[in-house]
Each structure stands twice: as C-alpha cells, then as structure tokens.
C-alpha cells in the first residue's frame, strides 16, 4: 500500500483525509525511455536544457515518488525564461505502446521582469496503462509573470502523480490553469511559497471524473511576504463511482501583513454514487490579513436542466451544456484556441 499526499496539518484519522492510500498501484522499477515528447518553442527568450537542480521538495507527494524523480527521471527539462515573450512554450508528452512510463523533472526559472506562458500536456492512447510521476518546480523572480497551463488528458487506466512547487519573489505573478481529466488515479500535490511582498499566485483547476477515477488534490499556499495574494478556485464534476478529495490549505505566516487568501471549491455530483470530500483549511498566524474559503457540493439544478431541455435538448446534452458552462470561466484563461477546442472535445467525450 502506498500512502501519499499528507496534509500539512493533520486532523482526525477517522475523517479519512490526512493522506491517500493506494493499494492497487505498482511503482515501476524499470521505467525505460520516454521519447515521445514534442517541444514547440518559438521564443528566443526561452532556453531549454536538461540541467535540473535536484532540491528537496517542501511537501511533495511522498518520499518514494520524490526519490524516483530525483534518481530515475527519464525526462529532465530546465526552462529558463529571460525577458518577455507572447509566444507560448508547448511541451507535449504523448504516451503510447513504446513510451509507457514517464518520470519527468521540470524546472522553470523566470528571471526578473520576464513573462511567458508554458503549456505542459500529458496525453495517452486509449489502450495502454501509462504511468506518470513528475515534479514541476517554478521559481519566479522579481516582477516575473508566468502562466502555466497543465493538462492531464490521460486515459482512465493510467496513473498520474505530480508534485508542483513554486517559489515567488517580490511582485512575481504565477498563474496556473490546471485541467485534470485523466488517470485511474490522479494525485496532485501543489505547493506555493509566496516569499516576498506582493507575490501573487492564482490557481484555477477544473476536473472531470467518471467510472472509478480517483482525484486527490492537495493544494498548499504559504504566504510570507506583505500584501501577498493567493487565489485557489477548484471546480469539477464527477459521475459514476468517481471520487474526489480536495485538500486546500492557505497558511498566513507571521509577517504577511495585508496578505489575502481565497479558496473556493465546487463539486457537481452527477450520480448518487460519486463521492466528494473536501478539506479547505485556513491557518493564520498573522492578524492583518483577509482569508476566506468556501466549499459547496450538489447536483445539477433541476430548474436549469428543465429550462435547457424545454429548448429541445436531451438530458445528456443539457448536462454537458451545464458542465461546460461551469468550466467556461477557466477555459477563457487559455488563449490558445486549438487547446481550448481540444479540451472542449475531451469534455464531450468524457461526459458521454
């Protein structure tokens, strides 16, 4: 049994949320090569090599998976952003019969006053059981502005493990758009350290679960700088026997005066066997801050369904429309129209 993704603060063991235990997972010993990677980089301000620093993660998913990335990564990318660019960097990992296991270690260093958008995509063929375990580390220096779009479009047989860690310096802005649809198990540890004044981190996540999928999100934001700001918005829909665990922690450390932290989470339950657990934590050691969280769950409103169906749509189509509408705000963050289309197509397929 693999125990992963510990919350920064424990609560009663009976609540079943301090960590996630997986008993039907084998971490591959021999991972082989992963060569089906496409990188589109049209900007002269972005340099890529494979000199990644192996620093310890503050949280991460757990020792075994972290060690695997540090010792056996079969893809290492060190992305240096120096200057501003409007040209997106696209890193596309495609799992197929010959590229089944990916252990990737990606580091993004955004120099002072730099700006870029990075798209990292994981997708797979339908008939394979892929394994992905990765670390993504982002260091945003003074006034850097980085947008990251992270897509998990793996099939429902695969395993997806990812640890994200961000370090934000003065006035740095890091925005994440996370589309998490794939994997039999998709387990994410996300940690942001808002170290300096006016650091700003926004996370918009959408997820879509079906069959026996299990999502475990463990998002942690630590605010240290004055006027630092974090905003976590997570919304998704689950049907069949899918399970979603959301653990969100905003931790106001002493000294982060005038900092703000918001987290909101909404789970739409599309069947009476889907299950949602959430733990939106606020930890506060500083007086002069504003922290809010909200969490809600429920089924699709019958009135909305009735209205749409009275316009001639069938039930399934009406449900799709409502879910797409819910995701729309997040999808609008994605300027790449092709990518938007691909995500919308995935939503349609996965809701069928």
């Amino acid at each position, binding site marked *: 049994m693999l125990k992963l993704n510990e919350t920064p603060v424990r609560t009663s*063991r009976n609540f079943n949320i301090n960590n996630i235990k997986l008993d039907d997972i084998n971490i591959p010993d021999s991972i082989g090569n992963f060569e089906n990677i496409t990188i589109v980089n049209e900007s002269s301000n972005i340099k890529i090599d494979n000199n990644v620093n192996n620093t310890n993660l503050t949280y991460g998913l757990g020792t075994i998976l972290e060690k695997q990335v540090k010792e056996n990564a079969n893809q290492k990318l060190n992305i240096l952003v120096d200057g501003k660019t409007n040209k997106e960097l696209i890193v596309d990992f495609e799992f197929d019969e010959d590229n089944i296991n990916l252990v990737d270690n990606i580091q993004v260093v955004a120099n002072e006053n730099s700006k870029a958008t990075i798209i990292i995509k994981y997708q797979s063929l339908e008939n394979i059981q892929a394994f992905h375990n990765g670390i993504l580390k982002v260091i945003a220096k003074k006034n850097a502005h980085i947008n990251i779009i992270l897509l998990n479009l793996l099939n429902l047989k695969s395993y997806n493990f990812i640890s994200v860690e961000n370090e934000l310096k003065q006035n740095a802005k890091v925005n994440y758009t996370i589309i998490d649809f794939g994997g039999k198990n998709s387990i994410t540890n996300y940690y942001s350290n808002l170290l300096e004044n006016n650091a700003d981190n926004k996370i918009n996540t959408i997820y879509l679960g079906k069959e026996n999928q299990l999502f475990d999100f463990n998002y942690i934001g630590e605010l240290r700088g004055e006027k630092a700001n974090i905003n976590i918005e997570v919304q998704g829909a689950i049907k069949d026997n899918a399970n979603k665990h959301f653990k969100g922690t905003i931790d106001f450390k002493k000294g982060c005066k005038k900092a703000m932290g918001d987290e909101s989470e909404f789970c739409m339950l599309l069947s009476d066997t889907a299950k949602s657990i959430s733990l*939106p934590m*606020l930890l506060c050691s500083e007086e*002069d801050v504003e*922290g809010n969280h909200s969490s809600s769950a429920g089924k699709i409103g019958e009135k909305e369904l009735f209205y749409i169906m009275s316009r001639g749509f069938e039930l399934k189509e009406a449900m799709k429309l409502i879910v797409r509408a819910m995701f729309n705000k997040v999808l609008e963050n994605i300027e790449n129209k092709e990518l938007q289309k691909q995500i919308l197509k995935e939503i349609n397929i996965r809701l069928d």
Partner: protein
Amino acid sequence: MSKTNIDEINRNIYDIKNKDEYDYKIKKGLTAEIINEISRQKSDPEWMRQFRLKALEVYNELELPTWGPDISELNMDEIATYVKPKTDLKNSWKDVPEDIKDTFDKLGIPEAEKKSLAGVGAQYDSEVVYHSMKEELIKQGVIYTDMETALREYSEIVKEHFMKCVPIYDHKFVALHGAVWSGGSFVYVPKGVKVDIPLQSYFRLNSPESGQFEHTLIIVDEGASLHFIEGCSAPKYNKVNLHAGCVELYVKDNAYLRYSTIENWSKNMLNLNTKKAVVGKNAQIDWVTGSFGSKISMLYPMSILNGKGAKTEYTGISFAGKGQNLDNGFKVIHNAENTSSVVNAKSISKNGGSCTYRSLVRINDNAKKSKCSVSCESLMLDDISKSDTIPVNDIRTDEVEFSHEAKIGKISDKAIFYLMSRGLSEEDAKAMIVRGFAYPISKELPIEYAVEMNNLINLELDGAIG
C-alpha cells in the same frame, strides 16, 4: 493615540480555591486495581465493574491522537481519577457543607435556581452533592437525578443506553472515561412532556492534580422537549487537571433538545470532553456552546441525524487568551433523508491564544434531499495569536445542498471608519464590532449567561488592539 484593550477573562470568581478536603481520594494512576477500588467505593453493580475494566483495556490499546494540540504533558500517573467530597448527595442547599455551598453561591447557582431554572444538579469533584427539581416536573414523570442514583433506580434504562451512543472504542479519552467515570446527570423526559424552563448541571473541580469524569445521559422521549444547561469551572493550580466527561443525548422522534454549555475551566485544565446526540425522525438537537476556559480544549459535539427530517444547529464561540489552545468544533452525520444541519461557529484569539475550528460534515448516501450550511468566522486581535480552520466535508450522495464558508481576519478598518464617521470613538467602534461579532452566539444563550459572556469580553479604553 490610546488604544483599546480587550481584557483577558476575569476569573476571580472561578479561581476561588477551597481547601483540598475530601472523604476519599484514590491514589494517582490508572491500573485495574484502581478501577476496582473506584467501583467498590461507588458500589457499582457487577456489570459496571466489568465494563470499567474492559474500558481500561481499550484505553491501554488506543493511541493518543496524532493530530490537534500537544497533550504530551498529560501524565495519568499524576492524576487522581476519583475524589469523593466530604458530603453525600443533598436535596437542599442548606444541607450542603458550608465551604462547598459557598463556592456554588459565589458562582450564582442557587440564585439561578430560584430565578430561572426548573432543576439544578451540582457536582463537586467526582460526586454530585446537590440535586433538586421542581415538583410539577416530578408529577409529569420527568426524571432528573445524578448518574449513580439512576444506575440504582433506573438500571434497565441506564444499561440500555450507557455508552452506546459514545462507545468506548471512539477514542482514547472516551475509553478512559468509561473506566473511571463518576457523577454526572441523568435526565428522562417522558413522551409529549415539554419542559419549558431549563435544567442545569454545574460541574466544579476543586481538587488539584485530579480529574473529573462526569457522565451525562439525557433521553428526551417522543414529542417531548427540554433545554439543558451545563456549566463548568475550576480554580487554577500549577499542575494539570483533566476533564474527560461524556455526554450522551437521545432525542427521540419529534422531540427537541437544546444543550447549552458555558465552559470556563481554569487555565491548567485539559478539557478532553466528548458529546454526542442521536436524533430521531423529525427531531431536533441544538447545541449552544461558549468556550472560554481551559489550557487545552479538544471538544467536538456530534449530531447523528438518524431519523428522516431530523435537524441540528450548532452555535458556538471560543475565546482563547494567553496560554490557551482551544481546538473546538462540531461533527454531524446525515444518516437519513431530508435531514438538515446549520453550523455557526466563531472564535476570538488574543494575547498569544490559539483557536482552531475543526469539523466534520458527512452526508451519507441514504441522506438524499439533505441540506447543510456551515459558516465560521475567526477574529484575530493581535499578531501573536493564532487561528485555524480545519473543516472536513464528506459528501456521499448527489441530492444534497451543501455549503461551507469561512472567514479569518482582524477587525475591519472600513467598519471602524464607518462607525467613527457616525461619531463613535475608535475604541467604542472596536468594542461595538467585537460585541457585534459575538452577538449571534450570545443571543442564543439564556439572558444571564449572555450577560456573563458580554462581561467576559470586557472592553477597556487603555491598552492595545493590534
């Protein structure tokens, strides 16, 4: 500019120490021999003696919690679990020994009994020393007595319900309670009887290096209603005292129970209390809790909504000052259709105090069309204090309406500005905001307790908020 100070709670009344006099005090520690001796002292029936020994076994098997405040300073080898006061149970205050009566007089219990209560129980250390109830309730068949009397006179009811709602396996301190419990109140309200005036039990722990383990068992039968108030306090000693009481509430179909608590233990007290209610069809349990005392508190009342249409409300406030770590909250299990819960929790931290709101909402798959709404707010009055919110929401069916929201922060500058623009001084504005913050809770308390709470949040015009 002079700043406003929100005082630490004035504990003069609560800190009155009587001489540590007792009829019998068991030696410190926790062994089968000690448990047998407690059982002998209390003339337990054999089944209770066996029950205590089983609970001790479970206590020894279970681990300390791996979460929450650090309670490693608790050493059961240094705690006396049974202290028999030098009096038997009395039904008249004049028969209670002078020093004990004097303590309860100062706490205002006999006065409250005259003015606004239908019955009173008063426990001193490990035993109930006074119990009485108005004649008309006795005529209606209401039973309000100490647990020991209940164990003798209503043994079948006690045996059927005792630690069935809160099993000894729940956690280590419930097992401890099962092994050493003593005192507490038993209430039975017959079908259809409405008890309009509250009953109150007051628990006082005077003896140093000891524990109080009272057991409260309340059964509100079908269609009946009751308001029960418990109060607790103790003088401060240098070494830790322990409170590990247990409250079991059975609210039968169509019944109503309001359970109010004003907890004001001394700041050397570890308050590891357990409270649970099982709620029947269309019945309702309301919890109103004010938590002011204790060095460490871990208290999470729980409602199990087993009957269709069952309801619960939790209204609670915690006020943590210097050296206090109050880890409080609420748990609710929705276990039937059309159940509903409303939670309104507030906390104030100051002077290095730490408040945590910890909760569980579980809506099971058989609880379709259920609703739950949770709101918690935390106010930080300085930058050396701490305030955490740790809520778990576990939703296992789709036909639900669930929402949770929480806020954390200091007194709003805008609100102060607004009030000052209306002519209030900064100090008065802040005082008004703090009182307003606590008002939704204090308005749920009986008037004399609301006044006490407002006194506890006493504002002075010299000093500093933040």
